[in-house]
């Protein structure tokens, strides 16, 4: 049951090329930590380091491949013979809108009103191939074209807005900005509002909890502890 403390594994090095320059880095690092190991200090191209923020879009190819691959530097292990570069910034246009003015009932296709270039999609599927989140990008663009806001919102939900889709798109569609708008419209106009929440907000505004809250705020610690320890806990819902 004890693992071999594999010193040899630790010392195993791979060769990578950062914008053409060759470095030897330990196998098992991510592209991000390999760049740091090699001596790069990030200002751009590094954000959450956990796959949520889209700051570290990377384009690379490997020695025996002609194809360009795209991924997140913080979530991809280095491979021997990797040629890579990070994309620090994506100058994509984004349309401003007023969330109160985009009721889909009042527009023919509200997404197209703001992002008409969506209609230029040639269904090449390059966006989908570029997506590090494996989102069906082209499918949601097609859904947007049909005016299906719900499907656009749901298919695009895991988008981290790294912009790789839009860099690759031959029709210059700004997928991720359009999808952001779709999700907000869907949440605001298609999803029913919560009665429970509305009721609670009203109770608070009427001051229904004020008296008891004041009691708690001024309660001496021992009494408060007792109240905490005695509260019932709902384990199953």
């Amino acid at each position, binding site marked *: 049951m004890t693992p071999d403390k594999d010193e040899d594994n630790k010392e195993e090095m791979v060769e990578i090329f950062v914008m053409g320059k060759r470095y030897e880095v330990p196998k098992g690092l991510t592209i991000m930590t390999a760049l740091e190991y090699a001596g790069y200090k990030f200002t751009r191209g590094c954000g*959450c380091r956990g796959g949520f923020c889209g700051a570290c879009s990377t384009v690379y190819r490997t020695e025996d491949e002609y194809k360009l691959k795209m991924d997140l530097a913080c979530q991809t292990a280095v491979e021997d013979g990797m040629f890579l570069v990070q994309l620090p910034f994506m100058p994509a246009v984004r349309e401003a809108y007023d969330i109160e003015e985009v009721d889909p009932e009042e527009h023919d296709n509200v997404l197209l009103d703001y992002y008409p270039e969506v209609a230029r999609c040639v269904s090449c599927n390059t966006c989908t191939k570029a997506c590090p989140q494996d989102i069906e990008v082209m499918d949601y663009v097609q859904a947007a074209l049909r005016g299906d806001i719900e499907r656009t919102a749901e298919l695009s939900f895991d988008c981290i807005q790294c912009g790789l889709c839009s860099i690759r798109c031959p029709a210059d569609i700004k997928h991720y900005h359009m999808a952001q708008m779709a999700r907000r419209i869907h949440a605001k106009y298609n999803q029913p509002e919560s009665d429970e929440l509305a009721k609670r907000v009203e109770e608070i505004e009427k001051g229904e909890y004020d008296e008891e*809250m004041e009691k708690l705020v001024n309660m001496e610690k021992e009494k408060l502890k007792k109240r905490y320890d005695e509260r*019932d806990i709902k384990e199953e819902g």
Partner: protein
Amino acid sequence: MSEGYPDYMEESIKKVEETRSERMDKTPDRMDPDQADEVLNNFHPDYREEGKKEIEIGPSTGRKAPTEVAEMLEAHSLIDPSEIDLSQVDYDVDVLIVGGGGAGTVAALWAVEEGIDPEDILIATKLRHGDSNSMMAQGGIQVADREDDSPIRHYLDAIGGGHFTNEQELVKALTMDAPKVLDWHEELGMMYDREDDGNFTELPGGGTSRYRLHSAGDYTGMELMRTLIDEARNIDIPVQEFTPAVELLKDDKGQVAGALLMNLETNEYYVARAKSTVMATGGFGRLHIQSYPTTNHYGATADGLVMGYRAGVPIRDMDSVQYHPTGAAHPDQIVGLLVTEKVRSLGAQPVNKDGELFVNPLEPRDIEAAALIRECYGEDNGVKTPTGMKGVWLDSPLIEEKKGEGTIEENLPAMVRLYERFGIDMTEKPILVFPTLHYQNGGLEINADGSTAVPGLFAGGEVEGGVHGKNRLMGNSLLDYNVFGRRAGINAASHAKNTSLGELTLDHIRKYENQLSEAGIETDKKSPMLLPEYRGEEVLKRHLDVEVTL
């Protein structure tokens, strides 16, 4: 790419699988206060005195902080005030917001609601707008909106979770504002998980007595943050990215009057004068307290804590650090990354190398974390990884046994994706976890309106302390930045309307330098840190300190 688990770990997984059906419906009782004290005292990193130090200068002299934090507070400023020309003002605004994460963006939006023209606001942020821990939060946000729940219960849970060390007025604000915050999110169009009738899908969290956790898959933080950014862009709030504040500015009346900013790429400084300043820089995970790995984003280096403290704001509860019970422990590439508490909310149990369930899965975070550390290092029941660290299993496949096939994919897409990249299918196999540095419980002292002891300075989010006392519950940090970002924004706006500034000064930095030398502190450290150092040792040894000119 590393693929799956080595054989010796697979052997332990077999034991986990063998015990699964008999554990399935068992939930160990939550610890009583004495049991909790015992495990905390013996195993929680906060309860080790060696890792801490008394702060020797400034408004909270004598209070304790982790050594790594104290060293940042007892360091020299990055700037020499005599080299700064304050007569040329580059930005002149009503409200300056330092930090473009959740708290800062919420503050900006509410300052506009309160009547400040977006043009008279500036968000200055170190990395990109939205680069923050807010973006990474997975589990959800606590709001007591159900019939069987109430702000009163939420208050009790939060204050008990914080071991009754929280500032009561702040907890009141947190729990009473929560429904209003969610109502605002509904208006903005955030895609929360809902039932067919429109009411929210809710789960329990560690230390909560009701189902109160609202989420958007396991991308809750991202969904909130990207929507807030979208709205800030829609109303054209100016943002300077890659432009951190390096010190606060004051005026000759003793008010905070903006900040000195620095272009992170050219190192040029800018004078940003502001009638109100909101500190919203987040926490300190990248200081790696007690050498723990962290879930935090790249810029979490306690900058606002340092700047606020130098400007005269006391700090509190800095001696308590939140270690999230479940950080990834294997594979090596993702060590320390967050495994959201939602995995346990959905039914996964922590089990040891022999497949035994050893703790209630939903204790408050400090207790749960201490119990995991005890299992690994007190009892030696952990699983050792190929790189030599220990962890326990989080039995994720149990979720689907309990709630049906597809539950994990639907509720935890980010987690599934994280593990899939390294050849592990968490719907089939358990995942190995160990506590990881997650959250700064304490911070700058604030009042319930988001103001601080220094006029003109407000704070919201992880940089401030008191809301959570010495331990924060799951789902209260997204709530914190919304509640106190909002309060700070509103009150910064009204302060700005009723204030006039005097002559700008950096005298407080000179005074702080004097205090350092009077206290006999000799250090070559400078702060704020801005960015952590991860470059390879070999490279740094050969690093030439030359400026290359064109």
